[in-house]
């Protein structure tokens, strides 16, 4: 083989990590919910889409009022987080809580229904066309020399996601709520016997997961600069792939799975053909499900009799 084009390689790597961070943020919501109630929340991708839309609406309003761009991005992010948390909380109460004691298929179908509902609700309430998203991320002077590899938006995505994931990790490890969440995931009945209110833990999980997806939504919209009602579908399925890749139920697994998936996609697109980008992600999903269903960091579940 001839010389390796390192510059091109780096470019692909950075773009893979950038995308991977977004997948990881969304994948965390899938994995945390699965860890607690063993449900794949298929409406989760829609929450991410709602985050992007909320950011856009806030940007529109504040833009007219003449706010500075960074301020718009920050406020948009905060509003999206609050709004999407409320959505996550409500979706759980409406679509999953009444089915808590039903067979496992019922909440799954309910999740798919919720996803279709949210997509079409945004399609009707907003528009089905692609909307342009303003560029809210300033040009950082120190990124000038490597601007052909790392765009400012990529930089913001990587830094913000790393920060958010670090905070989440510390939260889960050290806080009272974080410990209660882990306990509920490991043994819901025992957690209950210790006085942990599982309904509250489940709500908290949906709220946190949705907040993370909202951050992802706002970030990705500023990166690709266009959104529509359908962006949650593909991103959701890919983030789900990332969660399975890392080991569904595992928080570090979701982070790792997201980054690995993002890089795989990026390299496949760069070295093979960009037509294969999506196909590659799903090929990974199928291979993982066949050869290592517990994922990279997940533990094989031993069914005790």
């Amino acid at each position, binding site marked *: 083989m001839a010389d390796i084009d390192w510059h091109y390689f780096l470019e692909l790597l950075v773009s893979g990590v950038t995308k991977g961070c977004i997948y990881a943020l969304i994948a965390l919501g899938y994995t945390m919910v699965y860890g607690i109630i063993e449900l794949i929340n298929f409406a989760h991708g829609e929450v991410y889409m709602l985050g992007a839309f909320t950011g856009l609406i806030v940007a529109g309003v504040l833009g007219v009022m003449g706010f500075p761009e960074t301020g718009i991005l920050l406020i948009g992010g905060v509003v999206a987080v609050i709004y999407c948390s409320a959505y996550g909380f409500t979706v759980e109460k409406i679509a999953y809580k009444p089915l808590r004691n039903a067979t496992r298929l019922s909440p799954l179908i309910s999740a798919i229904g919720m996803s279709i509902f949210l997509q079409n609700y945004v399609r009707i309430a907003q528009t089905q066309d692609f909307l342009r998203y303003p560029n809210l991320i300033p040009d950082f002077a120190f990124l000038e020399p490597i601007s052909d590899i790392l765009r400012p938006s990529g930089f913001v995505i990587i830094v913000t996601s790393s920060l958010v994931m670090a905070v989440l990790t510390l939260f889960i490890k050290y806080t009272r709520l974080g410990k*209660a969440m882990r306990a509920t995931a*490991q043994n819901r009945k025992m957690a*209950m016997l210790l006085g*942990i*209110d599982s309904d509250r833990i489940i709500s908290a999980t949906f709220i946190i997961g949705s907040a993370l997806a909202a951050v992802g939504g706002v970030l990705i919209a500023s990166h690709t600069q266009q959104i529509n009602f359908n962006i949650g579908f593909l991103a959701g399925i890919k983030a789900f792939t990332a969660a399975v890749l890392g080991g569904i139920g595992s928080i570090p697994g979701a982070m790792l799975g997201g980054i690995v998936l993002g890089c795989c996609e990026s390299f496949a697109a760069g070295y093979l053909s960009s037509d294969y980008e999506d196909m590659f992600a799903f090929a990974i999903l199928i291979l993982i499900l066949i050869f290592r269903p517990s994922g990279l960091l997940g533990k094989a579940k031993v069914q005790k009799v």
Partner: protein
Amino acid sequence: MLELKGVCTYYGNIQALWDVNLTINQGEIVTLVGANGAGKSTTLMSICGAAALRRGEILFEGQPIHTMRPDKIVRLGISQVPEGRLIFPDMTVQENLDLGAYLRRDTRNIARDQEMIFDMFPILAKRRTQAGGTLSGGEQQMLAISRALMAKPRLLLLDEPSLGLAPIIIRQIFDIIRQVNKEGMTVFLVEQNANQALRVANRGYVMETGRITLSGPSDELMANPEVRKAYLGV
């Protein structure tokens, strides 16, 4: 302190408890003995609100608790050490203990209680940063009891604490039961090991296929020919 009146509990359509009547007085150690599948664990789960009653009522200090959520019942001062210990396997010993004190806010007393527990079970202090799942069966049982004690309950429910343990560990666990009782905690002990259980308890109940068939002071039960034959292997 605790009173079960005509309690009937079902699993689906299968009736597990039939008209169970049972009283536990403040300061007592009361035991419920019976064979595997007699309904002993179901009785405890009914008390804790984890299994819903079809009929009957459960009163804790005169207050009906059978309609309460499990976490509210813990708040009233009832803690259970469940069958099989149910340690959180991926959490450290320390975290398991922290979760025992989940509902408590008195940080200073929590630290003091934990010291007391480490005095009772020094091995747990040594294992503090180890994952619960890596502990031996005996250590897990100690941790399960300690976790329940961290909630500082007034009524401690124990489900088969001697199950699968070496005799020396069993003796240690029963010593601890006596000790916490002496310090004022009321204990309700469910056991298949009737011999040990009746020796430590003030009073006992015998359960067969979901019904209470006998009850009385421990020494009376131990002298009862039926009990001797069925449970004491004499």
